[in-house]
């Protein structure tokens, strides 16, 4: 299978006058097979790229929704190695870009080079470790270059323009813009500051930007794409559907399918 690059994906979406719809799931939540069906549902309902979390026991950048999903996945037996097996299975039905979101200890424990090698061998396009700032990322970036993986970094409200340049120099694929002051989790509305942040960051980078954290409704997706975002990442709102319907897999799939169609629709400019 010819895996699509982020560059090609963002061009494809732009040509349609749309933003990219990028749903997130924790690999193995609530269990390996159901999780796989959920990713298939993402793809069948318009996902332009996928964000797949490798669960960590102490996810400090995440709120209760993602932490619960991490715990469910870990209790169901997810490990880093199985995470890569999960992506290999996803690659059986889609070629859209896949980014792995995780925490640095999982990478460090496996061995930095080995982690990026496994990522390449199993069809991962990009890696983002939530607690790995550019200051500590030299080894990871080297391994990423060696194994043809794109290293993603975050930019936030607190990131100065000067610092943004430093992040730009190390980042490839896209820049992950943290929409809110805080941790992951659905928010009822986006603040004016989010729109201002997107505009500021757009004017300081040539990389495509995907906006995540707190985006949970179609109108919010519309807002971040309208403000100049190239993609919208939706996580907690999707995980909430899993949390609320844990005993009914069919309902999880049905509801996530409907929700993804709505979200995808709202990426049209």
């Amino acid at each position, binding site marked *: 299978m010819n895996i699509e690059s982020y560059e090609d994906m963002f061009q494809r979406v732009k040509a349609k006058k749309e933003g990219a719809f990028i749903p997130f799931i924790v690999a193995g939540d609530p269990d390996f097979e159901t999780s796989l069906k959920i990713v298939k549902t993402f793809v069948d309902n318009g996902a332009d790229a996928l964000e797949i979390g490798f669960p960590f026991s*102490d996810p400090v950048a995440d709120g209760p929704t993602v*932490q619960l999903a991490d715990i469910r996945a870990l209790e169901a037996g997810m490990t880093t190695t199985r995470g890569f097996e999960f992506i290999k299975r996803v690659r059986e039905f889609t070629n859209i870009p896949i980014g792995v979101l995780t925490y640095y200890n999982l990478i460090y424990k496996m061995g930095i080079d080995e982690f990026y090698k496994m990522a390449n061998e199993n069809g991962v396009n990009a890696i983002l470790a939530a607690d790995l700032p550019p200051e500590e990322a030299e080894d990871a970036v080297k391994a990423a270059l060696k194994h043809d993986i794109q290293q993603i970094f975050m930019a936030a409200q607190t990131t100065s323009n000067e610092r943004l340049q430093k992040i730009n120099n190390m980042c490839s694929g896209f820049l992950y813009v*943290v929409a809110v002051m805080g941790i992951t989790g659905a928010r009822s509305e986006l603040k004016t500051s989010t729109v201002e942040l997107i505009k500021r960051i757009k004017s300081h980078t040539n990389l495509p930007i995907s906006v995540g954290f707190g985006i949970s409704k179609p109108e919010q997706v519309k807002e971040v794409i309208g403000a100049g975002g190239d993609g919208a990442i939706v996580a907690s709102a999707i995980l909430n559907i899993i949390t609320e319907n844990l005993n009914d897999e069919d309902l999880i799939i049905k509801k996530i399918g409907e929700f993804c169609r709505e979200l995808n629709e709202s990426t049209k400019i």
Partner: protein
Amino acid sequence: MMLDGKFGKYGGVFVPELLIPALEELEKSFLKYKDDKKFNEELEYYLREFAGRPTPLYYAKNLSQKLGCKIYFKREDLLHTGAHKINNTLGQGLLAKYMGKERLIAETGAGQHGIATAVIGSLFQMPTEVYMGIEDVERQKLNVFRMELSGAKVIPVKTGSRTLKDAINDALRDWITNVENTHYLIGSSMGPHPYPMMVKHFQTVIGKETKSDILEKEGELPDAVIACVGGGSNSIGIFSEFIDDREVELIGAEGGGEGLSGKHGATLSAGTEGVLHGSLSFVLQDDHGQIAEAHSISAGLDYPGVGPEHSLLKTTGRANYYPITNDEAIRGFKLLSEYEGILPALESSHAVAMAEKYANENKGKTIVVNLSGRGDKDVNILADLMGVKL
């Protein structure tokens, strides 16, 4: 960052992007004020008048006779709030005030750091919230009440292992959300740079006083300095002044829990390298990098990580770390209570037990034990274990 915050390869700044500017601001302010005359005069005033420094270096005559060594105790247990924690909270609290921060947050395990933060929140009139694992809230009820009496809000943490590790996670999440007006007052020499360096700086007062006093009393340096190690702040504080004196053996006593084959908190004795709570250090983890739950009878040593400088001291062989089991710690508690009339905190009881082991194999030596905290907070646990109803 102006410095990389590394101790050898350990330490660093492994945090989400939102926190980097706050850590840069903190580093800049710390480097500015640590040598500032006015700041230091004010800090010394509070350490002396509010906390009760200097603390004595007490020669334990009865215990020395029993164990066949000269044993001294650095009496940090005599400080206001009952532990060394106040040295650091006064330092960081004053720094937060100088930085114009409006609110303090902290994590606590045993409650000693929570209380020390609560009282300086009151002293400096800053609203204070303390995150505490719900298991620790249960086993340290008295300390929770003391924090509340000082005007702090205690937030029980119900996630994960519900102990110190998870209290730190939630405090970090709070800080990520409220970074603009809040100072996160980390209680140990752990976390992202500049915390390990800064906490050590505010705790070196223990080592400085100890060195000066032992030279005055003995005319020479001790053979060994012993302290308990959870996150590692009291130990790095007393070790700091002796690191360059190679003839002084530095010994850390870790929470050995039920023994290394059972549940324990002996990160340096049984852990492996990993990244937790902002720095690269030794951690307790499984083969896949998931952080393990720690266990110790003492809530303050019930932590699966450790400050990064200890990892350097361990790997270079400058300090040695040994696990002390729950049972050994209880023996240490009773030993000091019965022979000297001093009730040590369960954390410090690990250091007392370590001193007994060292003395048994090294007769005639001079040992300094850092008595980091007093044991009033732990008498309920002891009473339960001894079947005494209070």
